[in-house]
């Protein structure tokens, strides 16, 4: 358990990194925009200016929370999976199959069934790199990157051929999912759909799983020190496979929630790298579920801000990329965090004198 001061320093460091990254973005805006202050205010204030925009932030945050959770689980076990994107596609695909093709039934049975299918799809697809890593020591970074392409191309094949909606208007997508099992809006008139509730529940479940069960304990122990864990009698290989499968299930959930909440059916290439954004979220959150929730909301806020900025000024929304990249680099710069901790340690000794 971290002491509260160490936690305070860590959070402070992350906040400093966030501010620095934002400043880097502002500098670029100042240098390249002819109306920099309009742009900056559109970036920072417009996302909160209407209930519609706030709803959009929540909607954007939902898949980010889920993929962020997915990656935080697998990173905690010391596996550097980059496969959330592929698992998300497979989960969404299997879930959408269940949503479109199962015979008519009560939505109270149908909806959970669709979710379970998505979880299973993601988990089983995640099992492949997990087994390859645990039992053959195959580099998980490469296998997951390759499997992403396999997932995207396979699903693209099916929605372009056998499963293509007749009424799709030339788009490669499945038949529309019945309105009964689509995620409803939380409040009428607001853009936010009920996915945010699912995401918050997932945060709580993952928190309990990681910190209050023996599975979570073993998982974190394997990530901290695999040799020690094995010496302590933990079946490290099984733990690795389980962690990648949990991660895959969460990524699959992200996919199906996106399908049920936003798109209404499975569309080709619908994700636009949500799985990779999840990596950024997990890094920002230091793999903690509650951190994931905060980081995803912040990240979604910046994304919506980038859009309102593109709409309200002469800056393209890609400026947000500068902020994202600096965030990733600064938050993961161990040199900076070690420095902060050392300073703290030194000042602590002074206090003892």
């Amino acid at each position: 358990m971290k002491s509260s001061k160490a936690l305070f320093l860590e959070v402070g460091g992350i906040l400093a990194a966030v501010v620095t990254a934002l400043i880097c973005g502002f500098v670029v805006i100042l240098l390249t925009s002819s109306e920099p202050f309009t742009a900056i205010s559109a970036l920072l204030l417009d996302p909160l200016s209407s209930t519609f925009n706030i709803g959009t932030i929540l909607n954007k945050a939902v898949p980010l929370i889920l993929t962020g959770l997915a990656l935080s689980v697998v990173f905690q076990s010391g596996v550097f999976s980059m496969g959330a994107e592929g698992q998300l596609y497979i989960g969404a695909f299997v879930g959408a199959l269940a949503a479109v093709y199962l015979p008519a039934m009560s939505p109270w049975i149908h909806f959970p069934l669709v979710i379970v299918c998505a979880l299973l799809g993601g988990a089983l697809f995640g099992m492949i790199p997990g087994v390859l890593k645990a039992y053959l020591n195959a580099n998980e970074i490469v296998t997951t990157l390759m499997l992403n392409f396999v997932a995207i191309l396979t699903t693209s094949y099916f929605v372009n051929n056998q499963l293509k909606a007749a009424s799709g208007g030339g788009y490669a997508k499945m038949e529309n999912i019945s309105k009964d099992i689509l995620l409803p809006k939380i409040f009428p008139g607001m853009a936010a759909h009920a996915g945010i509730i699912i995401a918050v529940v997932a945060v709580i479940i993952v928190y309990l799983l990681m910190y209050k069960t023996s599975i979570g304990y073993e998982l974190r122990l394997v990530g901290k020190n695999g040799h020690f864990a094995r010496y302590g009698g933990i079946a490290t290989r099984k733990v690795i496979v389980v962690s990648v499968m949990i991660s895959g299930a969460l990524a699959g959930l992200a996919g199906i929630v996106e399908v049920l909440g936003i798109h209404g059916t499975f569309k080709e290439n619908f994700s636009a790298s949500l799985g990779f954004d999840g990596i950024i979220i997990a890094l920002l959150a230091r793999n903690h579920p509650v951190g994931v929730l905060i980081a995803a909301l912040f990240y979604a806020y910046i994304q919506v801000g980038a859009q309102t900025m593109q709409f309200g000024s002469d800056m393209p929304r890609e400026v947000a990329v500068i902020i994202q990249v600096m965030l990733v680099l600064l938050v993961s710069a161990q040199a900076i965090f070690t420095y902060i901790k050392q300073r703290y340690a030194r000042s602590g000794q002074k206090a003892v004198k």
Partner: protein
Amino acid sequence: MVWQTIWGQIVDLSLVAVLLRLMTPILLASLGGLISDIGGVINIGLEGLMLMSAFTSIAVGSSTGNWAVGVLAGVATSVLISYGMGFFSLKMKVDIIITGFAVNIFGSGFTIFLMSKIYGMTGNYSPTGAPRIPVVNIPFIEDIPVLGKLLSGHSLMVWIALLSVAFCMFLIYRTPYGVHLRSVGEAPYAAQSLGIPAKRIQYSALAWSGAFAGLAGAFMSNGLTNMFVKDMTAGTGFLALAVVLLGNRNPIGILLGSLIFGLASALATIVQTVPNSPIPSQFIQMIPYVVTIAALVFFALRNKRRLATMP
């Protein structure tokens, strides 16, 4: 229908030309990946580096009217970013995988940013009359029936890529630098204790990978096509990572791996252009990725057996 087209292209040797052309960016990028891999600084940012170079190369090339200046500018940009990667991963201690990941996001987003800021375009930038990397027509040989088609008429970059294979062989296995590079990759602390400047070697390994990724990117915008399209590398940088492992981390293996991947994308192109093809192009595009996973499993099994038979 598809089979006839493929067969026709094999017979008139145009498949060879297409294959070499499509292989070149994969080969160059994976040679870059190889050097950084051997130096122990796995560069997964190849994709981002290629995009930055592709954009710079066509932007500078079309404004100066000189392809060589464009290519050099592209390579220089890519090398510069690689040094940036070195700064963050070696000095600021950011995990090298995360650094590469950041470079990929940066390359994809920043090129779109520049394109819309400089040229006011959001999807693609295709300047009229932008100079291209020239095609090498070999006198006399080009008139010989079969040989002419096999050897002549390829882009200069195809030859540069093939020569780069020999160059990398030499650099890695025949020079003191290569020995240092390999030792730093194997055991950085041991190398450092022998007086090898490990950090500097790793910086240079990243710079090499930047240079090769730069050449690959420049070829994509200035040779393969004559424009910049957003995210035009479309996973070539990730394929290159796969080729490094598929080629068992040596230049000749990488040449073979690139040939396989080049062939797969050449076939996918043919299948996509022939109407009502019975073979889905998605599955042909998938071949390289599946082959890579199979190869990884194969190498892993072999290593396992080797470890098991050790006394």
